[in-house]
């Protein structure tokens, strides 16, 4: 038998792996499960430096770190110190019409300049369409703003 034919037999065997799927039910529920996952991720969002710490320290936990890891750790430490000594910048942008835009979504209320949170109804309308919209306090960022995202509504 030629090598080409042998590969054909092998390829037939590999096609068996197509059967290794979790079933249609899993895929039917996946979108809903994904929304739940996204909501959880947003609510439990870790600060950016947690990811850096994880990436840098994972090799130390798993075994002996390489020289590159040690060098990267030192560089990050220096960059981190420089960052905290520098001016703090907000992730939000204030627009002329009073809206606050945040990378997470449309912000419908802000307590940035007030003692209490002021919800701006006209921004709710803008966010996702009229009376049917429900406001949910979904994501409170460091500046006391509430972001609205109809997709992630509880």
């Amino acid at each position, binding site marked *: 038998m030629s090598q080409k034919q042998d590969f054909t037999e092998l390829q037939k065997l590999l096609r068996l*792996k197509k059967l290794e799927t979790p079933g249609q039910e899993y895929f039917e529920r996946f979108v809903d499960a994904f929304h739940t996952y996204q909501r959880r991720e947003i609510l439990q969002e870790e600060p950016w430096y947690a990811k850096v710490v994880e990436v840098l320290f994972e090799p130390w936990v798993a075994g002996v770190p390489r020289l590159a890891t040690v060098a990267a750790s030192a560089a990050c430490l220096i960059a981190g110190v420089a960052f905290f000594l520098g001016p703090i910048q907000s992730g939000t942008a204030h627009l002329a019409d009073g809206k606050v835009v945040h990378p997470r979504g449309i912000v419908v209320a802000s307590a940035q300049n007030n003692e209490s949170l002021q919800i701006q109804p006209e921004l709710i309308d803008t966010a996702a369409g009229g009376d049917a919209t429900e406001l949910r306090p979904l994501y409170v960022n460091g500046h006391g703003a509430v972001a609205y995202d109809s997709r992630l509504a509880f």
Partner: protein
Amino acid sequence: MSAETALPPDLENGPTDEELVAATVRGDLGAYDELIRRFQGRLYGVIYHLTSNHEDTNDLLMEVFDKAYRSLPTFRGQSSFYTWIYRIAINRSFNFLDKRKRRQGAMSLNELDEDGLPKLDLPDISPQNNPNKSIMLNELQNKLNESMLKLSKEHRTVVTLFDIQGLAHAEIAKIMGCTEGTVRSRLHYAHKQLQKSLGIYLKK
């Protein structure tokens, strides 16, 4: 019909991937749900055949769609959405596999099989009404997956994309960011390795 090959009924006449991407960026979040439905089966397949573990695949698939959603505003359309999201899935899986490899030394014996590989989490594909055939199929499935896990992640990826998912060499090259020649040579090497370890199961 397997979920990997199943296409949603409106794919032929519905909006293109690029139209759905544009709609998502404009704020139509239902469009992203549609993109998820289109790609969930195929991406599940890629990740699963790389990790051989259902739970890890589920977690990684969520991460991939989340990462893609967050990165959509920066998606420039230089490649198709299809290529782009496949790349995210493969990169995430590679990162996961590297991490798992580093941690393998710290795994307990209960988590490893007799070859020192992570224990496989295989769905039962055997016919229930024929016990002998069922045993043989399970053995074959185990052997097949063990052999796949012994390949490097790059070789396993080309086998998955070409032999299991039926992608063309050119598409695989775009996804993996290499030349078609590299894809062909990786595929040839992987086939030889698999043939060596699965020889007794192949028809002579």
